[in-house]
């Protein structure tokens, strides 16, 4: 192929993917249909692996396609599909504008020990304990969190500003969206990664991808046997070194006519930059190469792996991932268990599969999904948890279950969701306005979609809430609406395992259609 065409295809394709990603995550009005989003998520490597592991159906096998693609063309994924990768390329470009030096890379030795250690640790932790390392390091999730925690609020603020201006002209096509922040602590992780990945990509190209990212390292391993690669035409090459200078992965050793294929992300910048047309992308040709093995390195890797396995055995007896009930009896809202979103099946299952990408948090039209900071324990940090002080789970909605890329939230049809009990409302009479103030309230019961929370006679003309737990689905509308403070008079205690709620029964009223005015 002609020299710059491949690169141009890469830029156009990745730009589209990137724009789509950004739109999905800043789409605070849920304008993008779920199936489009699911298509986009299908090819995200880590979510797809987890979903496939859960469902074991090919329809969740986007990662197989990525593996195949990698076997064919190397780490194309990293340049074409990975949103974090594309974002880094963007940063590198910006870096080059700031300082020319930032865009002159040159060959560097790989951080072999570091990257394989991280990959190994991630794999082991994932297999032994759960998704926690992946949660931190999956590039898709990292990018998704940048969007949810930083980009979306900015977009909403701009929207609100414009909605304010339009409102002055009596135009209401844009509406004000109240910005509700998250607990400060959940910003810390995305902030650290933003600085780390952002800083590295601004000044050092794809160093993050080739030093830390476990997906990059893993695909790098596979691409070592890929069919298509960057090749040197040694006779045409004048060893000018431009290719190495432009290589974001710092993986071209032009003096040896060698490309470290495990780090090459198939960006095709080298082909584009080569004035001698000495670099091409084509089927691999094997040349004899003296293979030197660094035994000491191997020993170190093996040793660290063993150590890790050993550690995992030791710590296996410790704290399981399921959140411990917090037995805080002094607090009137005695929550024993956090409420995990519908479709999560059980908190243990959910915690195992969720990589905290925040897509559901982003999508929830009610903003009831909030990143956890301690509800699920430290391991479940940033996974979504229902926060009924912020909002409630709207009855006619299944968005989060439809959109989860890892199947941590199983898809629920609306009828099933309406009968999925994720928690139970608990009434605390001593907090209730009706008892404390002796005045009417009923905010909880009027909000209840199933009338699990209903009013029964109290003193005089007053009525007071009562909860029928078996038809309660734990949507939290009662808790959200309850005006009691600082402790609510009704709250939802999560079910550690979701169960089926009973369908609310209803009988036709015996009030008849009037034939005369009763007044």
């Amino acid at each position, binding site marked *: 192929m002609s020299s710059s065409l491949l690169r141009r295809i890469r830029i156009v394709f990745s730009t589209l993917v990137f724009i789509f990603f950004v739109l999905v995550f800043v789409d605070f*009005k849920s304008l993008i249909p779920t199936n489009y989003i699911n298509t986009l998520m299908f090819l995200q490597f880590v979510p797809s692996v987890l979903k496939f592991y859960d469902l074991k159906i090919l329809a969740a096998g986007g990662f197989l396609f990525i593996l195949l693609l990698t076997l064919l063309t190397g780490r194309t994924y990293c340049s074409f599909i990975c949103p974090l990768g594309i974002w880094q390329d963007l940063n590198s470009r910006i870096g080059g504008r700031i300082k020319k030096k930032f865009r002159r890379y040159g060959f560097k030795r790989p951080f072999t020990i570091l990257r394989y250690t991280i990959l190994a640790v991630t794999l082991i932790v994932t297999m032994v304990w759960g998704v926690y390392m992946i949660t931190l390091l999956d590039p898709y999730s990292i990018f998704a969190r940048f969007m949810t925690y930083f980009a979306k609020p900015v977009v909403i603020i701009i929207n*609100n500003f414009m909605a*304010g201006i339009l*409102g002055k002209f*009596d135009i*209401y096509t844009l*509406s*004000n*969206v*109240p910005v509700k922040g998250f607990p400060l602590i959940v910003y810390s992780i995305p902030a650290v990664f933003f600085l780390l990945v952002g800083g590295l990509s601004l000044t050092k190209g794809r160093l993050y991808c080739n030093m830390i990212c476990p997906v990059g390292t893993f695909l790098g391993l596979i691409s070592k046997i890929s069919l298509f690669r960057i090749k040197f035409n040694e006779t045409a090459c004048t060893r000018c070194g431009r290719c190495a200078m432009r290589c974001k992965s710092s993986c071209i050793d032009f003096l040896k006519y060698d490309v470290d294929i495990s780090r090459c992300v198939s960006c095709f910048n080298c082909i584009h930059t080569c004035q001698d047309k000495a670099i091409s992308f084509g089927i691999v040709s094997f040349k004899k190469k003296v293979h030197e093995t660094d035994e000491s390195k191997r020993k170190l890797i093996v040793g660290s792996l063993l150590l890790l396995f050993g550690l995992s055995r030791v710590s296996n007896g410790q704290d399981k991932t399921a959140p411990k009930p917090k037995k805080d009896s002094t607090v009137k809202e005695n929550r024993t268990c956090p409420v995990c979103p519908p479709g999560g099946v059980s908190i243990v299952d959910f915690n195992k599969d969720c990589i905290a990408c925040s897509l559901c948090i982003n999508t929830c*039209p*009610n903003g009831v999904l909030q990143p956890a900071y301690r509800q699920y324990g430290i391991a479940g940090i940033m996974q979504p948890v229902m926060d009924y002080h912020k909002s409630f789970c*709207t*009855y*006619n*909605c299944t968005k989060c279950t439809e959109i989860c890329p890892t199947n941590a939230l199983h898809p629920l049809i609306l009828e099933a969701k309406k009968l999925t009990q994720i928690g139970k409302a608990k009434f605390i009479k001593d907090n209730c*306005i009706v008892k404390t*103030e002796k*005045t*009417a*309230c*009923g*905010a909880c*019961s*009027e*909000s*209840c*979609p*199933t*009338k699990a929370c*209903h*009013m029964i006679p109290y003193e005089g*003309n007053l*009525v007071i809430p009562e909860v029928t737990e078996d038809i309660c689905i734990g949507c939290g509308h009662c808790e959200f*609406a309850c*005006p*009691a*403070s600082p402790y609510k008079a009704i709250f939802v205690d999560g079910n550690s395992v979701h169960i089926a709620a009973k369908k*609310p029964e*209803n*009988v*036709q*009223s015996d*009030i*008849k*259609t*009037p034939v005369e*005015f*009763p*007044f």
Partner: protein
Amino acid sequence: MKRRDFLKTSIGGSLAAGAALKMGGFDKLWSSAPPAAKYDMVAVMGGSPDAMFDLGIQELGGMGAFVQKGQKVLIKPNMGWDVIPELGANTNPLLVKRIIEHCFKAGAKEVYIFDHTCDNWVNCYNHSGIEKIAKSAGAKVVPANSESYYQQIEIPEGIKLQKAKVHQLLLETDVFINVPILKDHNSTRMTACLKNNMGLVWDRGYWHANNLNQCIADYALYEKKPALNVIDCYNVMVKHGPQGVSKEDIVSMKSQILTTDWVAGDAAAAKMLGVAVEKIEYIPIAHKMGLGNMNLDSLNIKRIKM
């Protein structure tokens, strides 16, 4: 939830209810001669919501008695719940549409619709069927989901409620038409005119926490009162209100009450629902505060059966 309204600015002075309001400072508007109101209340039964309104408004002298040329009108339906029209949790969309049409016919410059919803507002506006039909009739359907749309007002004579934040459009429009749907209510026993006002204000929680019935009555003191109340009694939720669970909660009453006196409207609505007026505490409170007349016997009521 009801809206208060603007009797003052609206020529609504035309109505008998106007006499109960403070008119101070609005002499100019008052000066356009109001047509004499024949009835305090018109009750219609037996037709479709839009046909009943046509008939009812005619008996009240037509929409021109309430809306003058070039005025801005706020219509406040109850669309607070994410529930389809058949389940009677929200004002009938056909009725809303017909009122909008009458307003424009009377020369309204703009007609606005909003509600501070209890469920997700986008879903409520959508599934109530009101947003679509109101837009098609030319009204502006306005968000009310953010505190930024609300402005502080004072109700100095309120007993429990002396301050509230109301939607800015209540303040900016000339005529307020209150269009509640009659429903059972789990705590106050009934929701119609006065309780519809809760969709005009931002902080409903305060009402719930500070003697709900008194707050409902207190808010009715606020100077912007409705020129007209239209109570939708077509599909009436007689239990499990105000949200309802299923169609078993609904009784088809095919009725409508149009009145300039919202306390009287609520008293009549209570009869429709079969609840003693005294049980609905905010009605006698509002009556005692002089906000209207709950003694239907002393009112001039026109009853129409179609």
